[in-house]
């Protein structure tokens, strides 16, 4: 049942992102906390988790804030699924590994979003927008990950413990 906490965390981050993150933008670019969390859990728990979490987090965001249903979900699904597949061959609990995954993942995430926008006949200057939005967000996201990843790892360990003993003192 503790798995529910993961989904609650994602819901909380979606709400925070939509309401308070506009105060913490750098050069007009906001970080993506839902992306960081989904990618981290995909890295820790593999590709099935990637599919479940990205569908959950992505669809809620799309329903609430996007005119084209699926833009966020599609990008999130692709990036976290690849991360889930690659997670077998890396040392998962290292913050540095997560840093690299989030940095490259953010770039790919924005590339896939831009690809969807091309399909929808949006007009933009590819190189300029990629540098102005994707690069800045990649740096921003990965720096946040470098600090927050160890807490996500312990949160993940807590959630995955199967023995539920109500009388045992919690680590938290």
């Amino acid at each position, binding site marked *: 049942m503790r798995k529910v906490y993961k989904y609650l965390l994602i819901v909380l981050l*979606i*709400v*925070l*992102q*939509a*309401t*308070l*993150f*506009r*105060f913490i933008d750098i050069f*007009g*670019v*906001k970080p*993506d906390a*839902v992306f960081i969390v989904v990618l981290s859990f995909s890295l820790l728990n593999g*590709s*099935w988790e990637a*599919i479940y979490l990205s*569908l959950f987090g992505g669809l*809620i*965001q799309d*329903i*609430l*804030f*996007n*005119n*084209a*249903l*699926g*833009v*966020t*979900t*599609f990008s999130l*699904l*692709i990036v976290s*699924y690849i991360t889930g597949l690659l997670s077998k061959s890396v040392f998962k609990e290292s913050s540095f590994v997560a840093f690299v995954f989030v940095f490259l993942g953010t770039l790919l995430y*924005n590339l896939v*979003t*831009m690809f*969807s*926008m091309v*399909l*929808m006949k*949006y*007009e*933009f200057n590819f190189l300029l927008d990629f540098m*102005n*939005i994707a690069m800045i*967000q990649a740096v921003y996201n990965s720096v946040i990950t470098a600090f927050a990843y160890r807490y996500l790892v312990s949160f993940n360990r807590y959630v995955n413990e199967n023995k539920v003993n109500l009388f045992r003192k919690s680590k938290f």
Partner: protein
Amino acid sequence: MPRFFRNNKQFILFFLIAVALIAAMAYTYGTERYVTKVESIVGTVFTPIQKVFYQMGEEISDFFSSISEIGTLRATNEKLQKEVEKLRKENIQLQELMNENKRLKEALNFKTENVELDLKLATITGKNSGNWFNIFTIDKGKNEGIKPGMAVLDEKGNMVGQITEVGDNWAKVLAIIDRDSSVSAVAVRTRDNGVVRGDSNGGLIMIYLPLDAELIEGDVVTTSGMSRFPKGLIIGKVSKVTRDPGSLLKQAVIEPAADFERLEYVFVVTNTTNTGK
């Protein structure tokens, strides 16, 4: 072949979901619609929670900005006093002109074009958290008579965006600064027609201006009445006019009149015109 399916169950599932998502994108993109029941329920659950957080954010930011403004209050006050006096004089002149206009119209039996706007107040509950789209949600929907395609104004009456998707008691607004938004517009002084589109960096651009367009920096641009939005909603001011390279048209950079960073409440214009699209 069956072994392929058995061994790659996960990949096949992933692939099917991805295809379904692309199909969903293609199906829902660019349409104005009432959202489905499921989407409406998701919005109904999230809207009140987000409203609380959004208001909280506003209060915190107000608190900090009022601290930083304390030093400049006196100067601002004096400036505003002068502004009030100036506006009062202008207002009297305008009243005169309005009366004159009314008399002349009556004399000529002229049909009045500017209809009164029916406004409905709504609170913003959240904004698209990504960096590519400028969409936000409000706390009024189908139950309050909101329909897709209605214009949305800020507190001062400047054009902010248009309603695209409507749930039972919430709705999505596409801001005019989004890349996907286009509004038929006219320069008030020179009557040059064009289309105002967003550039997604918080700015606007007016395209399809004829080469002999005489608009200059500082001209006010409003909705033209050729789209379904009411005529005369203020969009912004011209900040630069350039010639479109390689074409026989001009374009102008417009500075939006609404402050999209500080939006808290908006008005939805519930009367739409039926002409055009």
